[in-house]
């Protein structure tokens, strides 16, 4: 017989003694958790504040009011239906003449050049579009708001904020702007160009439409390829494949692929799709193929997890009723696993939307002004556009970069929210 160690009285004392220590460590652990969340939230807040404070300015841009004359002799166009005349026409002369009339006492070549620099060098083409939309304007005068040059825009915004940045302007230009401001002939307007135009070397004319369309076509192709392939692979591996060395080998490799740095997929795409299959460079087709390779492992892994979470009793019930394996999968497993699969697909798509590294390798980093209209038009994507703008020297691109980041982030937030919403919606808790 051994001496009794644990009598009820003994035990109670020991338990009471340990209680304080246990409660303290739990308390401490909770505070660690709260601290971790706090740090995370602070980081996100700093990031968002920085981006928004830098980027919000890009949604408004300076316009100046000028009285223009669509003078046939000045432009060199008398027939608006003649394409050759339209191409050869001296459109920029119209805003230049308007500026000369606004500031009649400016003389000298250098001063005139500075004066002409007040407006965007694309403003002549804006006026041309305006004229083509309303041909009756030819030969008449009208007062219009004309897009200002990016340096003027930067200065005017900083001047309105009370911290004028005039490093790139001459004293005369500053003087002219202040005159225009006093007359109410310069103002900030909503910058629709940002959403309707493609990239440009001139910040005031640059927009994200091209990059958004590029992203859209690329992601569309990625989704069309990776979702069916990924789901089919997941279903086969989970439900039909024999459990042997081969399937283990495949599973390990899929998990490894999910961890491969994305730029490797870019190199793979370059070697296979472009150099071997001769798919053209810089197009959404090759971008979509590369991103498909990249998102496939994610989709396969999440889909398999979703299939695994379908209770085995449902499978047994279906098989017991005499359903074939295919019917069991199609009628019972797939509907129950679909919300999980869709969530995985959307998260994979969000990942693909934010990816730039692999696309650099396949030439989607090119400077492309035209807005892509299909899968085979040269294009760039949003994150690469951000990269390009962040790399540009013009000061006005700083706010544009942040604005593009805001657009990208809002797309990502919308996608992730819709993933949560879809899952809630489709998860039919019977």
């Amino acid at each position, binding site marked *: 017989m051994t001496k009794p160690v644990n009598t009820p009285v003994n035990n109670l004392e020991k338990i009471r003694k340990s209680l304080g220590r246990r409660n303290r460590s739990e308390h401490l652990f909770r505070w660690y958790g709260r601290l971790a969340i706090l740090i995370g939230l602070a980081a996100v807040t700093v990031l968002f504040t920085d981006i928004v404070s830098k980027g919000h300015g890009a949604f408004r841009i300076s316009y100046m009011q000028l009285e223009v004359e669509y003078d046939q002799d000045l432009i060199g166009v008398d027939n608006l239906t003649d394409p050759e005349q339209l191409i050869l026409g001296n459109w920029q002369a119209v805003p230049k003449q308007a500026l000369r009339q606004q500031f009649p006492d400016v003389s000298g070549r250098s001063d005139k050049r500075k004066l002409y620099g007040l407006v965007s060098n694309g403003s002549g083409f804006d006026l041309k579009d305006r004229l083509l939309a309303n041909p009756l304007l030819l030969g008449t005068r009208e007062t219009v708001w004309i897009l200002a040059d990016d340096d003027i825009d930067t200065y005017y915004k900083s001047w309105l904020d009370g911290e004028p940045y005039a490093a790139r302007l001459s004293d005369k230009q500053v003087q002219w702007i202040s005159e225009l401001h006093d007359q109410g002939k310069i103002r900030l307007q909503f910058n629709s160009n940002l959403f309707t135009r493609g990239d440009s070397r001139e910040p005031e004319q640059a927009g994200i439409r091209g990059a958004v369309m590029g992203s859209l076509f690329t992601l569309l192709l990625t989704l069309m390829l990776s979702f069916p392939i990924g789901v089919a692979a997941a279903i086969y591996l989970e439900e039909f494949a024999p459990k042997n060395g081969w399937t283990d080998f495949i599973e390990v490799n899929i998990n490894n692929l999910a961890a491969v740095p994305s730029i490797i997929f870019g190199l793979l795409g370059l070697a296979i799709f472009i150099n071997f299959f001769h798919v053209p460079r810089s197009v959404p087709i090759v971008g979509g193929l590369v991103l498909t390779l990249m998102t496939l492992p994610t989709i396969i892994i999440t889909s398999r997890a979703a299939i695994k979470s379908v209770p085995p009793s449902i499978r047994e019930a279906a098989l*017991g009723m005499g359903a074939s394996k295919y019917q069991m999968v199609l009628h*019972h497993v797939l509907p129950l696993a679909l919300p999980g699969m869709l969530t995985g697909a959307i998260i994979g798509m969000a990942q693909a939307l934010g990816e730039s590294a692999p696309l650099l390798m396949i030439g989607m980093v090119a400077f492309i002004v035209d807005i892509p209209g299909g899968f085979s038009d040269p294009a760039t994507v949003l994150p690469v556009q951000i990269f390009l703008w962040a790399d540009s020297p013009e000061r006005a691109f700083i706010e544009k970069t942040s604005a593009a980041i805001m657009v990208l982030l809002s797309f990502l937030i919308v996608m992730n929210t819709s993933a949560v919403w879809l899952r809630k919606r489709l998860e039919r808790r019977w």
Partner: protein
Amino acid sequence: MNAIDPVMGAKAEVKQNLEVADNQVTVGSCFTDAPKMTMRNVNVFYDDKQAIHNVSVDIAKNEVIAMIGPSGCGKSTFLRSLNRMNDTVESCRVEGEICMDGENLYAPKLDVVELRARVGMVFQKPNPFPKSIYDNVAYGPKIHGLADTRVDLDEIVEDSLRKASLWEEVKERLHQSGTGLSGGQQQRLCIARAIAVSPEVILMDEPCSALDPIATAKIEELIEELSQNFTIAIVTHSMQQAARVSHRTAYFHLGRLIEVNPTEQVFTMPEHELTEAYITGRFG
């Protein structure tokens, strides 16, 4: 040390006698004149581990045969090899001959889809599909193409639910979820689903183990009614249940079929000492 607990002592004593010989022969009346299913020398393996040893028995037409025995004795494994549900377990291998109406169920050309339409199954835990009550019952007839028109299908659903004595309770909410029913109703729904394809044999794997006594009583009543039209093999943990619902009882022990006899005889004067030990509660 304390004195040995008399009950524990008795159990320990029996345990020494629980080893069964390899050449154990089933005692009692295994075979019938008009068998629906015949099993001869059935062995079931999970990888190298043998779960069922050399079982031979008949199941007569329209009888209810209960399979009882301690946990892990292989009664569920045996039941699941009767409609080849064991096929889904990759490591499982069945040897011997299992025939229904003289046709070998493990013949290579036999299609399990057809087999499972003829041999229905009700599982331990009620497992209705996460669909409406109607769709649950209509699923079998739909996939097997048993109903030509919507009207036929409605009729099959109503008839099956009536046979499962569930119709009165659910006729107002046929299009509501099947998983919203109570446990006992769910199990009756599963029975209705199984009989909707008019199987010849129904296998029940501890159908009442997840149910309360009142729900259990309803299912037992139902089994009795169903035995007029179907052949039923039921695995149960409850000896009382076996005594109440079955015509014959088969006692399994460590993967061997020890005794098969009319239920009344098994529970009043069992032939084998192991059966007696089990039904008198000396182990299990």
